[in-house]
């Protein structure tokens, strides 16, 4: 509406495959990235970096990982946190045991380990459908943290299985300051988000959605179900693994296996329900919501006259509101905040016409 689409047409298919067809959208994204990379580190303060922005980014990535599996390929999983844990501990061990392994490389390897694990727990999906799968993913959810606690080797024989971050530097550039960790996280998340967007727009992405929408038909037109599903598990596992590593090292600094319990998995699931299944943008919206909402709530409670809501209750109230929101979203807007945004945008592009 506020910008002109007239005169923006493609003469080659490649032009249609660009990230955005409209010049203005590409420009907008570019500006956003410049802002996030160049401006924010200058103006932000440590509280924002380490308490809001970094967790927001990491959770977005985790949501993205689960979304690829659940939102695109239609395979429900309650084991996200397990794969995050696997990624974190694997990264830790790669850093620990291989001299001079670049940080990003160990992130990637950690992701690869998580991918492998996810693949294994995805195997039952070849036989079973729907929520029967949650058993397999829950098995991972309980098995992995148990193993990480039980076998000291994973945490380099730390008494309580706690691992702590390696030195965060890339090409000798030290990133251990809050701003540095934010930038590092941002870089990884942005890169992986672009990759994910390419994947879901590719043949593989279409196959995922086909399997999700109607697997019988998918098989009939020759889509290899097993391969498609397992790739979904593996790639999703990779994303979750990297997210776990970031969670442990750029956000928390130190983490124990129980930091990746069932509730974490639920948190990630809620991100994609609220943000929007089958959408890349949705993960960021959902994560922003999950991170900001509690802060908002506690601030509101703070505004109320003292003692009206005692802090102990706040958590319960928060829980109830989250639960209610989940149901409301599932009823009113199953495709989440992302859908709302798309509808708004579509209206804007047609305005003042209705259709």
């Amino acid at each position, binding site marked *: 509406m506020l910008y002109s689409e*007239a005169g923006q047409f493609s003469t080659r298919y490649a032009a249609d495959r660009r990230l955005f067809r409209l010049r203005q959208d590409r420009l907008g994204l570019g500006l956003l990235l410049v802002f996030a990379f160049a401006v924010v580190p200058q103006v932000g303060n440590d509280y924002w970096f380490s308490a809001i922005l970094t967790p927001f980014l990491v959770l977005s990535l985790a949501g993205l990982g689960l979304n690829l599996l659940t939102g695109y390929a239609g395979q429900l999983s309650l084991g996200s946190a397990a794969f995050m844990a696997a990624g974190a501990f694997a990264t830790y061990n790669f850093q620990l045991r291989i001299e001079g392994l670049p940080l990003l490389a160990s992130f990637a390897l950690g992701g690869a380990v998580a991918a492998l694990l996810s693949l294994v727990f995805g195997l039952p999906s070849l036989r079973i459908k729907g929520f029967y799968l949650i058993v397999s993913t829950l098995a991972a959810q309980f098995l992995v943290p148990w193993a990480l606690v039980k076998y000291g080797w994973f945490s380099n024989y730390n008494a309580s299985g706690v691992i702590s971050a390696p030195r965060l530097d890339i090409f000798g550039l030290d990133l251990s300051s809050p701003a540095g960790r934010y930038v590092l996280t941002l870089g990884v998340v942005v890169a992986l988000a672009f990759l994910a967007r390419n994947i879901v727009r590719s043949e593989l992405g279409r196959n995922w959605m086909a399997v999700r929408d109607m697997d019988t038909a998918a098989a009939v037109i020759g889509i290899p179900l097993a391969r498609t599903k397992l790739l979904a598990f593996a790639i999703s596992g990779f994303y979750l693994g990297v997210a776990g590593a970031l969670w442990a090292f750029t956000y928390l600094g130190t983490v124990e296996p129980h930091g990746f319990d069932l509730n974490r998995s639920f948190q990630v699931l809620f991100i994609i329900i609220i943000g929007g299944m089958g959408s890349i943008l949705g993960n960021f919206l959902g994560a922003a919501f999950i991170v900001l909402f509690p802060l908002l709530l506690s601030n509101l409670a703070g505004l109320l006259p003292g003692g009206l809501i005692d802090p102990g209750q706040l958590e319960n109230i928060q829980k109830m509101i989250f639960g209610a929101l989940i149901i409301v979203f599932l009823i009113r807007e199953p495709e989440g905040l992302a859908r709302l945004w798309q509808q708004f945008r579509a209206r804007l592009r047609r305005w003042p016409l209705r259709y």
Partner: protein
Amino acid sequence: MTPFAQGDRRPTSGLPGWLHLQAAGQARSVALRHKRLGVWQERTWGEVLVEVGGLAGALSERGFRPGATLTILSNPRPEAVLLALAAQWLGGSAAVLDPRGEPGAPNLLARTPGRDFVFAEGLAEVERVRRAGLAPALIVYADPRGLNADLASGLISYPALAASTGGHVPALLARPVAVAFVFLRQGHGGEVELQETSHAELLREGQALVSGEALTEREEAFAARAFAASGQARYLLAPWLIAGFCLNFPEGLETRDIDRRELGPTLVAGTRETWQRLENMVRERLPAAGTWQRRLVDRALAPRAAGLTGLIGGWLVRRPLRDVLGFTRTRVPLIIGEPLPEASVQFFATLGIAVRNWKEAADWKAQDRTQRLTTAPDAAPSGFQRRSLSSVTGVQPV
């Protein structure tokens, strides 16, 4: 041979001559664009020249001689334009019929002077040609559905025809005095009316349009498909060749609005019907009555909304609306033939689209006829009521 008289920049060989001129002047810039298979396919002036030359070769190999007429039964599409130019290249003419089956259309087809060479868009048109009792030596079709398997002699697809010549390009035989287009239509008395337009006349009209509207080679002209092929031949073809801008064809009737928006044409030529259709579409798609959005829109579209409200309305409603319709860049909105009713003109005017009307000037007719009767190379078949041509004088702001 050279299509140009010595020392004179103006070609002496009609429309194809101008094609040569443009190809020489701006071989690399885009001459034709039409949306097909989801993207806008482009032809540069150089390619157009080669293609037309090849077609001319193919036609002459199949016995198309000077003075012959190629009947075109098709919605506007590049193939039709290029084939018409090829026929004119060989000193012949193109008889353009409106493919949309209005009552009496078949007998128009039966009366076409060009009985041996036909361009029929697709299966339906080919069948109509056959029903009309024509037995052409050559039927060229563009849309292959249901025709590839048809092995009837003389039936050939456009690509096959274009490829059939061995690069042999015949001499350019077009002459200004020669008839370029023949238009047939059902007169009000039910009798068939025949119009013959010479190159000279088309070029004169075209030149008038070009100078009147100051058209440059940078225009993007949008040929709505609903706008009959004949109309385009008369009002877009000559200006296109003279000014050397780019002529754009949408993907289809139902996608034209989307395509117009994508393209954002600077020159839009339509008929009263096409403009009114557009207006009605807008009116029925405006926000539902009673909503605040509707009130905003109504205020913005109220005539003479001036001052601040005018400014706001412009940014919040008129400008976006222009863009949705694809008129953001439109500089020359034309209506050909009967004028729009005042209300509609007002409507578009408030949007900032000053639709201009091209009128026919009666006084030119007589003199024009004498001129043409003496110069016309071929006497039209008896039994047709001869009717002289309108010609365009200039802008008539509405």
